[in-house]
C-alpha cells in the first residue's frame, strides 16, 4: 500500500528559531534508517539599497495556493529521490535581519539524495511559491524583494 501524503502547513508566523531547528533534528533520532540530513536556512540580509538599508522583510503569501503548490513540489521530490523525510517551513510577517525565514530539511539513507533533493526544493520554493517579501528600510520606506 502506498503511503498517503496530505498537504501540510508550511507557514510559520515570525522567524524560525534555532531551537525549532534543533527540535526538528532531534525528532529524527528514532529514524535509524537515516544516514544523512541536508538543511538549508534562509537568513535576512542587511542589504544596502539606493533607497536605504534593509532592516527586515515582511512576508505575505497567497496561502491556499502556496500550500497546494508546496504539496505538488513535495510529491515530485519524493518521487524523484529516495527520501525518508522532507520538511519545509517558511516565515510570514516581519522577520528582522539576522533571523531565519526559510528552513528546508531533507533526510535519506545516503547523503547524495538528501543533498540533491534539498537543493532542488529550495530552487522550486523560490521560483514557484506565491510568496512576497517587502523589504523594510531604515529610511521608513520599503522596496519589493526580487528573487534572482
Amino acid at each position, binding site marked *: 500500500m502506498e503511503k498517503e501524503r496530505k498537504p501540510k502547513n508550511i507557514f510559520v508566523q515570525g522567524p524560525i528559531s534555532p531551537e525549532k531547528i534543533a527540535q526538528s533534528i532531534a525528532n529524527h533520532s528514532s529514524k535509524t534508517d537515516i544516514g544523512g540530513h541536508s538543511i538549508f536556512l534562509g537568513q535576512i540580509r542587511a542589504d544596502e539599497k539606493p533607497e536605504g538599508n534593509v532592516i527586515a522583510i515582511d512576508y505575505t503569501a497567497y496561502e491556499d495556493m502556496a500550500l497546494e503548490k508546496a504539496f505538488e513540489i513535495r510529491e515530485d521530490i519524493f518521487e524523484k529521490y529516495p527520501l525518508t523525510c522532507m520538511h519545509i517551513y517558511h516565515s510570514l510577517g516581519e522577520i528582522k535581519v539576522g533571523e531565519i525565514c526559510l528552513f528546508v530539511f531533507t533526510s535519506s539513507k545516503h547523503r547524495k539524495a538528501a543533498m540533491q533533493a534539498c537543493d532542488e526544493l529550495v530552487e522550486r520554493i523560490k521560483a514557484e*511559491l*506565491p*510568496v512576497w*517579501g517587502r523589504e523594510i528600510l531604515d529610511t521608513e520606506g520599503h522596496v*519589493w524583494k526580487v528573487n534572482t
Partner: protein
Amino acid sequence: MSQTIQIKAFGMIAEKIGSSDLSLDNPGTLKELRAQLESQFPDLVGVKFSFALNKKMQLADSEIPAGAEVALLPPFSGG
C-alpha cells in the same frame, strides 16, 4: 458573462491597487481583465504580474469561468 468575479491582489499589485480584494463584473478573459484593471488603476501599466484562476497559474490568455477566484500575482520573492 456578466457575473461577478472575486479578485485577490498580492504584494506590489495590492499596494498599487490600494486593496487586496475586489469584486468586478467578469470581463470574459484574462486579457480583457488586464486591460480593464490597467484602465481603472493606471499605476498597473507596465507592471509585471501573472494571473491564477482558482489557484492555478495561467500563463496564456484564458476564459474566466463563472464565479472564479482570480489572483493577481507579482513575481514571487519567497525564501
